């Protein structure tokens, strides 16, 4: 059965390691903060100017001056620091973020990503995505395996405007965990009950499949 958003977030959280500085994009990536393994310490970076992002506030302690990159009210944890956007993006471009998780429309088997614009559709903008994909050491994409029309989002070439080139290292979808290797997409795990055949069928680029493909443990 395909994973729901919560399960994708849970699977992503498994990629977090002790001591990591992590930037989580809007949506499912942000949800992963709820499932950080209990035995590790990580620091969540939000690019508008905070290291050490905590949970959402309660109705008694929210503050209009304390928001995340999605403009949601948040809190700060002990050990947090605030800084301006120039310093915040210095952290990103300078390679100080260990893990970045973001959504995407399309990802290619060399790690190109399209995530910010659908021509003829809405004009939203770039935000911090181009900075993040250009410089983070480890970029994981969280997305559905196919779009609303059922078309594959893991492709050979992006048809949509690019966000960055050769940067995505791993993709976690509702159907599979796929690594971007020197030789292309490599299937690592499949969603519980989802067949390798279904994943192959819904992926528009060759998939390296070696041995038995285990089910994800959520």
């Amino acid at each position, binding site marked *: 059965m395909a994973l729901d958003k919560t399960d994708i977030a849970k699977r992503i959280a498994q990629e977090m390691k002790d001591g990591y500085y992590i930037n989580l994009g809007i949506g499912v990536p942000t949800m992963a903060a709820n499932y950080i393994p209990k035995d590790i310490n990580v620091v969540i970076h939000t690019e508008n*100017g905070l290291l050490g992002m905590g949970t959402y506030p309660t109705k008694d302690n*929210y503050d*209009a*001056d304390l928001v995340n990159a999605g403009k949601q009210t948040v809190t700060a944890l002990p050990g947090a620091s*605030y800084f301006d956007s120039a310093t915040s993006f210095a952290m990103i471009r300078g390679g100080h973020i260990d893990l970045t998780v973001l959504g995407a429309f399309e990802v290619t088997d060399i790690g190109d990503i399209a995530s910010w614009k659908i021509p003829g559709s809405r004009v939203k903008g770039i935000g911090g995505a181009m900075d993040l994909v250009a410089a983070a050491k480890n970029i994981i994409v969280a997305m559905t395996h196919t779009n609303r029309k059922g078309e594959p989002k893991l492709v050979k070439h992006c048809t949509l405007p690019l966000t*960055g080139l050769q940067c995505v290292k791993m993709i976690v979808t509702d159907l599979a965990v796929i690594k971007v290797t020197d030789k292309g997409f490599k299937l690592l795990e499949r969603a519980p009950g989802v067949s390798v055949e279904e994943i192959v069928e819904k992926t528009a680029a060759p998939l390296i499949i070696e041995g038995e493909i285990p089910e994800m443990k959520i």
Partner: protein
Amino acid sequence: MNKVVNNIEEAIKDIKDGMTLMFGGFGLCGLPEKGVEALLKSGVKDLTCSSCTAGIDDFGVGLLIQNHQIKKLIASYIGENNDAERRVLSGEFELDLVPQGTIAERARAGGAGIPAFYVPASYGTEAAEGKEVREFDGKMYVMEKAFQADYALVKAWKGDTHGNLIYKATANNLNNPMAMCGKITIAEVEELVQAGELDPHHIHTPGIFVQHIFQGTDYEKRIEFLTLQD
């Protein structure tokens, strides 16, 4: 060294049609509310502006678009403002989309006397079209030029009569970089104190970057997404 003006009207009186204005704030967080209000009333037009976002339909920098005062906006994201989106699609104003970190760095560079610098962000994308690219140590970069701003409008939590500023939590964001790059920077603060009342170790924007300062009142500080724990 007293930079205090009585109100925003006094601070903006020399802003003229066609000028380049920079705004601090990330969406509505840290927005120079009084500055936007006064510019709306002033009717000054043909502005080139830079701001991280266009705010939302009925609050923030986008109101200046709605009021036909902006001819070009350099921003990183306008996704929360449907009105601005319609107007850009209809060609009512020009939108120059730039990565968020690039906006911040271009503002800082403008204030720091650095005319241009290289960043990896946007290489190979349409946001880099028309920009020089160059390889350093085997990786490709885009050359970005510093902002030059006639005025910067920023908002801080506390300020003193020398123009020193302290921001609260994540309300610093683009305020400090934009303050650096304004030929004239107008700072509005929630609390204005005498020089000497702020600890010099705690200053986020040194007063040298600020020309006019005043204490604003009745800040709305609207929240884009009030998100609470379950």
